């Protein structure tokens, strides 16, 4: 197991180092650390604006959110390994040639990915907090406790989603039952005054019993997930009647109906249809809603909804990443399509799927009695989504999932979307109707996409 882990770990490092250079990739945690450090320095100012304890809640929920976004192993499982490693991986396919079970390899894969995320994101954040703690008035003991509980919040989110997605993969009714049981348990905990979010409870009041219970729960969820997970395809031949022709006909008015129909079938049949929407968009957005609602007292009227719309827009732009992640680009090399056509077709599918974040914002507006400003909120979300995806296309072309780990690209992305976000939030806070200003971004977004397409069409990549 250690040898396999080390081999996978080295492989992961070399894949990234080859893409960004060893120094560039090694600098990524430094960038995260610097950002966390700067954020921590601002803690006294933020704390003054927030009711006591809310900042700790927000930070813990953010770590839970990162865990949730990482933990979708069960959602695509082997397919994710195929997409990530493809033909270049040897270690992930060692079961074919060595006496190693697929389950053991997958368990190691999960462990390796977990450690990688810890090293790339979690530990650098904790280091940044620790470095800035003297300036933020945080005692060393508090920093240590915070480090532990944030780590547990991340692991809780990751293992919970791993469990849910694995159960989803096994049986939809079993998933419904599990979700109901979890919801009921949460309700009972709330009524009984038990800690519904143990990592936060542990931060507020440390207890060895609670720590042991939480660690046991995480280990149990992980073990059940690995036991339930089916790393090997069943060997059965899944058959489908022709859905492509009808779908392509229905999408006939779009610029690339064949490519768009394939995208939608890819997404649906890969298990990513409902599940991807649920786990990568609805759940994180629900958490974000909860986080933002904590700021209700310091935000202007409708501020929660408008801020939520901004986040829905940025998160909605990651749909482009799904569309590229589920599609191996190699086979296009046999066909008369270039990078430009592929990017345009992915964007066509992307805009079709933007109905999802738009509906989520609409529902949030109606559910919170802010129906009057629902339309500007949706416009805000869609405008920002268009701008974010344009920046993504310009910076990363057809590989947004990989290039996010290039510190230079990430910094450029954050810089590229940061200013419009600040400007739009400021406008919308002055008057919710100024949320319509988000639609203005569509024009520069189109220009940036054109520039991005020109850039990637002439790049000396492996495919053009």
């Amino acid at each position, binding site marked *: 197991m250690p040898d396999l882990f080390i081999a996978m770990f080295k492989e992961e490092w070399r894949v990234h180092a080859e893409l960004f250079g060893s120094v560039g990739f090694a600098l990524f945690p430094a960038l995260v650390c610097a950002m966390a450090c700067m954020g921590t320095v601002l803690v006294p100012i933020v704390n003054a604006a927030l009711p006591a304890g809310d900042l700790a809640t927000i930070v813990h929920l953010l770590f839970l959110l990162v865990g949730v976004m990482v933990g979708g192993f069960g959602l695509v499982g082997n397919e994710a390994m195929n997409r990530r490693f493809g033909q270049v991986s040897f270690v992930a396919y060692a079961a074919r040639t060595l006496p190693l079970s697929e389950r053991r390899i997958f368990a190691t894969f999960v462990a390796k990915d977990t450690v990688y995320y810890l090293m790339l994101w979690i530990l650098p954040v904790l280091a940044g907090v620790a470095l800035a703690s003297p300036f933020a008035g945080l005692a060393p003991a508090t920093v240590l406790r915070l480090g532990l509980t944030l780590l547990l919040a991340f692991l809780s989110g990751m293992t919970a989603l791993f469990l849910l997605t694995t159960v989803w993969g096994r049986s939809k009714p079993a998933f419904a039952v599990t979700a109901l049981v979890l919801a009921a348990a949460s309700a009972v905990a709330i009524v009984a005054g038990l800690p519904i979010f143990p990592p936060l409870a542990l931060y507020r009041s440390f207890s060895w019993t609670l720590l042991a219970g939480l660690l046991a729960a995480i280990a149990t969820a992980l073990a059940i997930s690995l036991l339930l997970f089916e790393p090997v395809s069943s060997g059965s031949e899944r058959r*489908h009647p*022709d859905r492509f*022709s009808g779908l392509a006909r229905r999408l006939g008015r779009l610029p690339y109906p064949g490519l768009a129909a394939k995208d939608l079938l890819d997404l649906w049949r890969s298990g990513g249809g409902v599940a991807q929407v649920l786990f990568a968009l609805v759940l994180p957005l629900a958490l974000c809603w909860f986080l933002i609602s904590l700021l209700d007292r310091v935000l202007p009227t409708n501020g929660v909804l408008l801020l939520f719309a901004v986040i829905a827009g940025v998160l909605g732009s990651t749909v482009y990443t799904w569309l590229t992640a589920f599609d191996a680009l190699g086979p296009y090399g*046999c066909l008369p399509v270039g990078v430009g056509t592929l990017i345009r077709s992915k964007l066509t599918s992307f805009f079709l799927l933007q109905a999802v974040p738009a509906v989520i914002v609409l529902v949030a507006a109606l559910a919170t009695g802010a129906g009057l400003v629902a339309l500007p909120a949706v416009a805000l979300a869609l405008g920002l989504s268009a701008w974010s995806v344009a920046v993504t296309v310009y910076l990363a072309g057809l590989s947004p999932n990989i290039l996010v780990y290039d510190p230079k690209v990430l910094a450029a992305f954050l810089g590229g979307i940061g200013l419009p976000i600040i400007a739009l939030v400021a406008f919308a806070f002055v008057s919710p109707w100024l949320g319509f200003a988000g639609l203005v971004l569509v024009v520069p977004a189109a220009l940036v996409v054109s520039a991005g397409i020109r850039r990637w069409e002439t790049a000396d990549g492996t495919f*053009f």
Partner: protein
Amino acid sequence: MEGASHPRAASIFEQEGTSLFTIAIDPCVMAAVIEARGLTKRYGETVAVNDLSIEVPAGALYGLLGPNGSGKSTTIRMLTGQIRPTAGTATVLGVDVVADPVGVRSRVGIIPEQETPPSFLTAAEYLRFVGSIRGLDGTDDNADWWFEFLDFGDKRDVLCKDLSRGTRQKLMFAQAFLHRPALALIDEPLVNFDPIVQHQVKEFLVDYVRRGNTVFLSTHILEVAEEICTGYAILHRGRLLHAGTPLELRETDRHLPEIFLALVGRDPAHA
């Protein structure tokens, strides 16, 4: 598209006593469909293909031979506009591969060595998808022909990810010839096929060429090259070592494996 209509594979044996060699077209009288001059591809310090100049006449069944890592696949990828050459020029069917790579791919059929069809389309859907990308009418008739010819019609509704490697290769074969291209570039055409399908495919390729089309294939199975090719080039460490025709070989009473081993086998790396 300017290619021939689909042949019936059996037709190549309809002329009794005719061997595969004797039906080959004399490449000397035909215009070149592939012309490469000084084609070079470097990856950092590694030179994958080094100053390759080659001409493939129309109507040829041309074999690019070489050991593993000799640059065969890189050459095919450059000729089909999938990767940009570091230096040199190439035209395929008169189209510049750098200036108009999509134009090249719209005219030729390509079977890559490693790529497999998209996971989440069925075999039939994939051929319809290829038809829609290539703007073809009547894809279904062509697809049906291929399902029948390569005997995998029972798999037409199976997701590509659940197909065996051999069946995926059959599907990739079908997609490459769906638009009846005047030129097909095939990387290791027989590698995943059983002996029966290998035989069928060899028959098909010979007949396809006899109907006025051109096939450019890479292989390291020398016996296959000697059996069906009308011309060949031997590549080693990215360099062109030798080019010739089986007719020339027969005149000197030599065989391709003998020449190949004499040229490549003396390299200590292959000793």
